[in-house]
C-alpha cells in the first residue's frame, strides 16, 4: 500500500457533473486505493445483505402460499389472501386485544413510574443511600425473562411467597395460584415488567437531571417554592424532551409485546388472556408451520408499528414547540 492512500477523496474536485462512466471509473480507482480500509467494511456489508436484507426480501412470502416443499422463489403468489384470512381469524383478534391491553397497562403505569422514581432518587440528600438505592433498583433488569418467569411461578405457587404474605396479612383465607387465573394475567404481565425495568428506566432521567443548573432551585427556594412546586416547575420541564423521546420509542414498540415473557408465563389455563401477537406469530409459524400466514401477521404488525412511530413523533413534536425529537 503506498502512501498516497492518505489523501482523502473529499479533497478532490466535485464530480457531480461528470459522465456516469467516468464516475464509476473514479470510484473503482479510489476503492482500489482504499482497499485496505474498505476490507474492514466489506464483511459488514455482506453481513447486512445476508442477515438483514434477505429476510426483508423474505417478507414476500406473506403474499405467497409457502409450503415446506417450496423455495422462496417457487412458491405461488396469492396476493392479499393471507391478509384476508387475518381479518376473520378470531384467535388473531384475541391476540390483538391482549397485546393492546397489556401494552396500554404497561404504558400507562410503567411509563410514569421510572419518572417518579428518578425524581425521588434525585431528591435524596444522602450520597451513600442514594447509590445503594440505585444499585438495588437496576438489579432486576439483569435477570432474564426465563429466570424471572421461573421466580414468578414459584412466588405464585400455593406454598410460595405471594400466598404466604397474603395469608400472614389476613387478606386471603385459602392459598390459590393466580397464574392459573386468566382474569389476572394482564396485571401479572404488567406488574412483573415494571418490577423488572422500573429502576433501569431511571438511568437516563437521572443523567438529565444531574445537568440541571442548581441555581434554579436556589432561586425557587428564595421565592418560597415548596419542594413539590420545584419539581413541577423546574425538574419536569427540564426533562420534557427526553420524556418525549422515550414516549415515542415506547409507543412504537407497543405491538411488539415481550415474547420471552409470554412464552414463559403462558399456560393452558391463562392462554385466552395471555396470547399476544408475537407469541401467536411464533405458534402459527414455528409450531404449526404456517409460514406465509405468520409472516403476514408479522408484517401487518410492523406496518402498524411504523405508523404509530410516525404519529407519536408528530404529536410529541407539537408538544415540544414543533421540534421533532427523533
Amino acid at each position, binding site marked *: 500500500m503506498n502512501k498516497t492512500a492518505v489523501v482523502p477523496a473529499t479533497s478532490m474536485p466535485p464530480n457531480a457533473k461528470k459522465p456516469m462512466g467516468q464516475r464509476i471509473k473514479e470510484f473503482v480507482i479510489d476503492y482500489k486505493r482504499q482497499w485496505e480500509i474498505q476490507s474492514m467494511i466489506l464483511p459488514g456489508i455482506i453481513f447486512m445483505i445476508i442477515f438483514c436484507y434477505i429476510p426483508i426480501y423474505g417478507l414476500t412470502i406473506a403474499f405467497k402460499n409457502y409450503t415446506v416443499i417450496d423455495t422462496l422463489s417457487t412458491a405461488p403468489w396469492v396476493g392479499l389472501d393471507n391478509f384476508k384470512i387475518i381479518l376473520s381469524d378470531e384467535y388473531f383478534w384475541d391476540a390483538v386485544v391482549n397485546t393492546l391491553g397489556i401494552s396500554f397497562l404497561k404504558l400507562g403505569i410503567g411509563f410514569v413510574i421510572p419518572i417518579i422514581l428518578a425524581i425521588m432518587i434525585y431528591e435524596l440528600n444522602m450520597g451513600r443511600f442514594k447509590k445503594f438505592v440505585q444499585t438495588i433498583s437496576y438489579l*432486576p433488569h*439483569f435477570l432474564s425473562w426465563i429466570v424471572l418467569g421461573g421466580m414468578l411461578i414459584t412466588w405464585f405457587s400455593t406454598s410460595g411467597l405471594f400466598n404466604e404474605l397474603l395469608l400472614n396479612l389476613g387478606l386471603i383465607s385459602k392459598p390459590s395460584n393466580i397464574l392459573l387465573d386468566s382474569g389476572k394475567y394482564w396485571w401479572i404481565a404488567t406488574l412483573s415488567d415494571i418490577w423488572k425495568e422500573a429502576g433501569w428506566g431511571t438511568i437516563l432521567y437521572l443523567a438529565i437531571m444531574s445537568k440541571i443548573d442548581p441555581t434554579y432551585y436556589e432561586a425557587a427556594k428564595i421565592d418560597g417554592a415548596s419542594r413539590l412546586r420545584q419539581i413541577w416547575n423546574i425538574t419536569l420541564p427540564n426533562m420534557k424532551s427526553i420524556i418525549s*423521546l422515550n414516549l415515542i420509542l415506547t409507543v412504537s414498540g407497543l405491538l411488539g409485546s415481550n415474547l420471552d415473557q409470554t412464552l414463559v408465563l403462558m399456560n393452558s389455563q391463562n392462554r385466552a388472556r395471555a396470547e399476544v401477537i408475537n407469541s401467536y406469530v411464533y405458534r402459527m409459524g414455528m409450531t404449526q408451520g404456517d409460514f406465509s400466514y405468520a409472516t403476514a401477521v408479522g408484517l401487518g404488525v410492523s406496518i402498524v408499528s411504523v405508523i404509530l412511530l410516525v404519529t407519536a413523533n408528530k404529536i410529541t413534536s407539537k408538544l415540544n414547540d414543533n421540534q421533532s425529537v427523533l
Partner: protein
Amino acid sequence: MNRKVVKEDIDSRIFDAVNMVLLIIFMVIILVPLWNVIISSLSSGKALAEGGFIFWSKEFSLENYRAVFNDSSIGQSFLVSISKTFVGVFTHVFFCAMIGYGLSKRYIRGRKLYVAMGVITMFFSGGMIPTYLLIKSLGLLNSFWVYIIPALFSYYDVVILMNFFRNVPDSLEESAKIDGAGDWHIFLKIFIPLSMPAMATIALFNGVGQWNDFMTTKLYITNQALYPLQMKLYEIIVQSQTQSMQNIGGSAVIETTTKGVQLATIVITTLPIVAMYPVLQRYFISGMMMGAVKE
C-alpha cells in the same frame, strides 16, 4: 419572614421523610422476593412443600443443588452458556469495531450508502419467519454457530464505536502512516488499545444479552447438547408447570423436588451476572449513556 422559613424547613423535612419511606418500601419490594428465592433454594423439599417462610429457611439443606449437579446435562448447559457468551462477545466486539473503524473515516468511497444501509437495519427487519427460513437455508439449524454468526453485527454498536474512534486524534494515525503502517496495523495496534473502555462497555452489554438469550435456542436448536442454561431452566419450568397441573392433589413429592430443582437452577443461572454486577455497574451506566447520546 422567620416563621415562613421555619415552616418551609418543616415541609421540606416531611418531604424528605416521606420520600425516604417510599424508597425503602420500593427496595423491600425488590429485595424480599429475590431473597426468598435464595432462601427457598436452600431449603429441604419438606420445608418447601409446607411453605410458611419468607425470610429464613425452616430446614436448611443443599439437596436441591445436589440434585441439579447430579444431572450431568446441567453441567453441559453451563458449558454451552459460557462458551457462547465468551466466543459471542469477542467476535461481536471485534466485528463491530472493525466496521466502525472503517466507517469512521469520512473519506472512504460509498460511505453514504453503507451508513444508509445500516440505519435501515435499525428500523426494519424481516421478522421471525423469514429469518428462520434464512437460518435454515444457511444450514445453521442445530449448530453452535447460530449463537455466534447472526449475533456478530449490530449497527447500534457500530455507531457507538465509530463515534468513539472519531475522538481519537488524527495526528496519531498520520504519524503512524508516515512510519509506513497500513490501516489494519493502525487499527489493531493503535485504535483497539485506545478504545478499550468503549469496547468493554459494549462487551458487557452483549455478554449479558448472550447469557440471557433464550429465543435463539427456542427457534433454532432442538439438539439438547446445545441447550444453554436459560433453555434448560425453561424446560424445567414448563415441565414442573404441566406436572403441577396434572397432579393437583397428587404426588406432592415430585412437585416439591422439581420446585427445588427449579429454584436451584434459577440461582445458578443468575449467579454469574449477580456476581459480576457490583464491579460492572458503572460500565453498564456509561454504556446506557453512550447509547443515549447517539439518539
